[in-house]
């Protein structure tokens, strides 16, 4: 597969492209280390929604439990937002932004939904404290995302995390 083939054209709504077999939404920002997506702040509440991107879901394995901190808890970028268990392995879900947890998706009681619909199943809503500053450290932009995502898939394949 050539690099051009790896990045397919937009799907119906123009905001979704298929990259190396994974769907990538171009209207979201991505935390590159944890493979979390971050939606832009809501116009009325200022909250941002956070979820796992499809590559994050794929490389995590079968998610058995996903728990986010309580509403009202302040989280800092790079520190635990919650915890996740897959393959009997427990680790933190790392906050992509500093802020206060405003909502936790009740759908997390069935973690399978995150796997089946990564973009449709947000994990938490956070009111960010430093959106302008911290969002600059996220990957975003329709011109940049497909190539970045393709590089990530190739890296995971090289490391053996994803099947070739």
């Amino acid at each position: 597969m050539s690099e051009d083939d790896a990045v397919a054209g937009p799907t119906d709504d123009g905001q979704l492209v298929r990259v190396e077999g994974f769907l990538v939404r171009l209207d979201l920002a991505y935390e590159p280390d944890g493979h979390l997506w971050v939606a832009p702040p809501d116009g009325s509440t200022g909250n941002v929604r956070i979820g796992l991107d499809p590559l994050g879901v794929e490389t995590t394995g079968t998610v058995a439990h996903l728990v986010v901190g309580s509403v009202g808890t302040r989280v800092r970028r790079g520190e635990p937002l919650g915890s996740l268990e897959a393959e009997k392995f427990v680790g933190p879900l790392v906050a992509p932004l500093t802020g206060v947890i405003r909502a936790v998706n009740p759908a997390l009681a069935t973690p399978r939904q995150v796997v089946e619909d990564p973009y449709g199943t947000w994990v938490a809503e956070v009111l960010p404290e430093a959106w302008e500053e911290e969002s600059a450290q996220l990957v975003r932009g329709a011109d940049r995302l497909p190539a970045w995502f393709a590089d990530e898939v190739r890296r995971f394949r090289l490391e053996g995390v994803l099947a070739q």
Partner: protein
Amino acid sequence: MGPEALLETPARPGSRGSRRAGRTLGTLRVLDFGAVSPVRSQSLWHALACGVGRGSPAALALCRPAQPYVSLGYHRPLADLDLGTCRRRGLPVLRRLVGGGTVYLDPRQLFFQVVVPPDAVPAARSQAVAELLGPARAAFEAAGLPADFDQGELAVAGRKVCGHGAGLVGGAVVVVGNLLERFDAAAAAGVLWAPDAESRRRLAGRMAECVGPDPTWPVDAQAFAEGLVSAYAEAFGVTPEPGGLTPFEERVARRFDRLLGSPAFLCGPGGQSETQLTERRRAEIWTVKVRAGVVEARVVLDSTVLRAALVGGRLRDVVVEDPEGDQDPGVATALEGVTEGSPALEALARGGPSAARAAAAAARLLARARGGGE
């Protein structure tokens, strides 16, 4: 010390710092704690993880609990347990910071823990667990249990001989396991909440079939311990160095002594233990995972009670109780071996009311199993 703070980054594959750097381990500390109290059998290796996370060399630890107790996987609800039974039997209840189920532990189980820096193992969880658990296979063989990986578990002839869990604790990757020298199925089933005596009886029977070595198999724990040290030293390419906890780890162990059985920590990261308990008792479907691919279940639908095991997605040992129905034994027989979407379910659904209720109960259980409900 909040538990979330102990689940330090890196967390998931690709998380900061978790990318495999091909790091080699300079040495392997070997710590044999012998028989210790229930809480020490957990706190010692939690502390060891914090030490490795701070830069101490990788470690292999061994211990066994001096008394029986119960351990909850980090995310498991307290509602898994029959707390009244635990209290009556004087069993301490502890929560651990690694994954896996709610388990009964006793002195006939030899625990081992492998603790390494995150960059010494693959980024993918399943690969990391397999890589860190893999060398233990040789030790099981040395103990007289020629185990192979079966659906991610070490098993001999369909019997799970090693429970395991894993996680990122205090900045280090930990895989914990145990040699089940003998498994007390009745005690293990007895500490779990079950909706009725028959469910518990069936659960104990299922555990006796699937967990622990066959009672006739000799198990050599000493050979296991020696095999474990040599297998991990060889796998890591290092010389084992016996030793003990550092002063820092000793201090951290004492903090874990207080944390792991504390009421707040026992409620779990999601909290709401009372809610979970109520929901579990009212739920129409009760399941307990016995081992990978084997679940014991009870479903109540209207007046019908369906009892069954799910083995590889198929119903086994089906019993249907329907006080309002005609108790046709053919219904249970027809459900044997059934999988989700099976024509047998449709055929039963078109039968009489009793058969239809049993088919509906079976369908709900199979759908729940597909969804990973247990």
